[in-house]
């Protein structure tokens, strides 16, 4: 039983590794998303029964592709509903010429069509939520249960979401191709947004103690690397990959033993993952080589890189940070970037100057209900010694926060303003444990 389970897991691992590439190649041949997914699923089941006895083939991807092609024929023969009889016959004729993988030692080279697959999964006609699930399923090879667990939804809900998405791709005629040049920037942005969404989902879920959810950060980074491999001249793909790696390098130090938030200025930088940083810096450099006008992700990565290469918070090169924020704001105004810029000013020039920069921001719509604005405001007031105003600003920030760890962090900062044994903040902070 136990050894069977191990074999099962080993087959699963191999299949997962090959999934995206095989699916992409298969889709190129059969043209129907649902059909390709179903056929590959059948091939996976075949692998589960064959490989434990006969061993994993020398070219598992080639084996899967061949088997899935046979399975696609079976499915098509069984199915009466197909978009066009003519199209079906054409595909069948082509697939029929393929040798039976069980009898053949021939191992085909699998053409890399994954970029098409990624663009299809992240098509703007699909909602981002659906694109996220579909990308993890089709490109990363996660199964429905793993994705459902990662997003804390019942498996049936996730299964339905994925089935609907696959059907929509087939029925609505989402093309399987690399978008034409004039659509490329917009479509690439949609892809990058989906990858970053996957990363952020993992990043916000991680509380430093448990790994119960599939590691979405790792998946997102893997996707980032794949994008850079498939589209090496796309500067923002490198920029995003760098950004994710640099953030990910701090995963061990950004929360404490009971899941409490450890801010950047209090993190143990010796715990930062140097391998991640090294790779992140390399991709950042690569991004700058591709484009002289860096985009949003690249500039975010640049900010992260400044921290990553500085030994302590007090040694941070704030003027350099400011320059990056200015570069970001040159192309478009963004209240969140403006807020971070104000924080950088407060360190580069002093809290008084930081407050002035915050005041300029106060007119931005919805900023009054943005928690980080009030937290930053409170911090600057505290550094100026205005305890009463800082206390009020912290209270507002806590009110606006929906995250327990965040609330506990803010309460502690608030309590530290007026040290005493019976402050509410300290009590609430203990509640978290």
């Amino acid at each position: 039983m136990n050894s069977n389970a191990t074999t099962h897991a080993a087959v699963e691992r191999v299949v997962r590794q090959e999934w995206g590439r095989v699916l992409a190649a298969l889709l190129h041949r059969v043209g129907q998303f649902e059909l390709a997914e179903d056929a590959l699923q059948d091939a996976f089941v075949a692998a589960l029964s064959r490989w434990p006895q006969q061993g994993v083939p020398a070219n598992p991807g080639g084996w899967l592709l061949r088997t899935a092609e046979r399975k696609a024929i079976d499915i098509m023969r069984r199915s009466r509903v197909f978009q066009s009889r003519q199209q079906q016959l054409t595909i069948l004729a082509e697939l029929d010429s393929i040798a039976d993988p069980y009898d053949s030692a021939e191992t085909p080279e699998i053409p890399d069509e994954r970029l098409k697959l990624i663009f299809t999964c992240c098509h703007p006609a699909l909602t981002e939520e659906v694109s996220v699930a579909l990308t993890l399923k089709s490109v990363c090879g996660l199964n429905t249960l793993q994705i459902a667990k990662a997003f804390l939804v019942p498996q049936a809900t996730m299964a339905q979401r994925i089935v609907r998405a696959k059907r929509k791709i087939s029925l609505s005629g989402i093309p399987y191709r690399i978008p034409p040049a004039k659509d490329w920037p917009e479509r690439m942005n949609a892809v990058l947004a989906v990858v970053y969404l996957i990363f952020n989902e993992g990043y916000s879920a991680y509380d430093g103690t448990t790994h119960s959810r599939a590691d979405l950060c790792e998946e997102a980074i893997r996707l980032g690397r794949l994008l850079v491999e498939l589209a090496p001249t796309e500067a923002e793909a490198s920029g995003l990959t760098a950004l994710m790696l640099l953030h990910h390098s701090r995963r061990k130090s950004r929360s404490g033993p009971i899941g409490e938030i450890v801010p950047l200025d209090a993190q143990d930088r010796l715990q930062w993952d140097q391998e991640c940083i090294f790779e992140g810096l390399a991709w950042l450099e690569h991004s700058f080589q591709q484009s002289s006008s860096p985009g949003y992700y690249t500039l975010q990565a640049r900010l992260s890189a400044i921290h990553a290469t500085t030994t302590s918070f007090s040694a941070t090169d704030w003027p350099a940070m400011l320059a990056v924020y200015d570069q970001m704001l040159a192309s478009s105004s963004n209240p969140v970037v403006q807020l971070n810029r104000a924080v950088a000013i407060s360190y580069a020039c002093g809290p008084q100057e930081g407050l002035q920069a915050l005041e300029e921001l106060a007119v931005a719509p919805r900023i009054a209900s943005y928690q980080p604005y009030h937290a930053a405001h409170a911090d600057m007031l505290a550094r100026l010694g205005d305890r009463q105003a800082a206390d009020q600003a912290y209270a507002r920030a806590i009110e606006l926060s929906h995250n327990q760890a965040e609330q506990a962090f803010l309460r502690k900062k608030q309590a530290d303003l007026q040290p005493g044994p019976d402050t509410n903040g300290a009590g609430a902070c203990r509640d978290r444990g």
Partner: protein
Amino acid sequence: MEYLMCIYTDPEADPQKGSPEHEELMSEYFAFTNEVIEAGVMRGGNELHPASAGSTVAVRGGKVEFVDGPFADTKEQLGGYYLLDCADLDEALKWAAKIPSARHGRIEVRPVVVME
């Protein structure tokens, strides 16, 4: 592949017939219609009477049920449609975005079932 572009607008907010705004919109529609005809994708299209003049039919348990007026309780109503023949969804969405009412209403793009 054929796509039905359903044009949803809020009749209350639509330009009044006879107003300069309405005239402007009509000339934009005229131009768009010419464009899809010239592009060879036009299969059909019409302006529709208000949803209040329509009926929705449903058969439940063998019984025919009629719903008077708009089916969904929203301000926007189906006000017209184009039936366009496009290579794929990308092309269909490009045309949909060019429909003048896309700016103040919504265009629902529905692939047409092919009967064989």
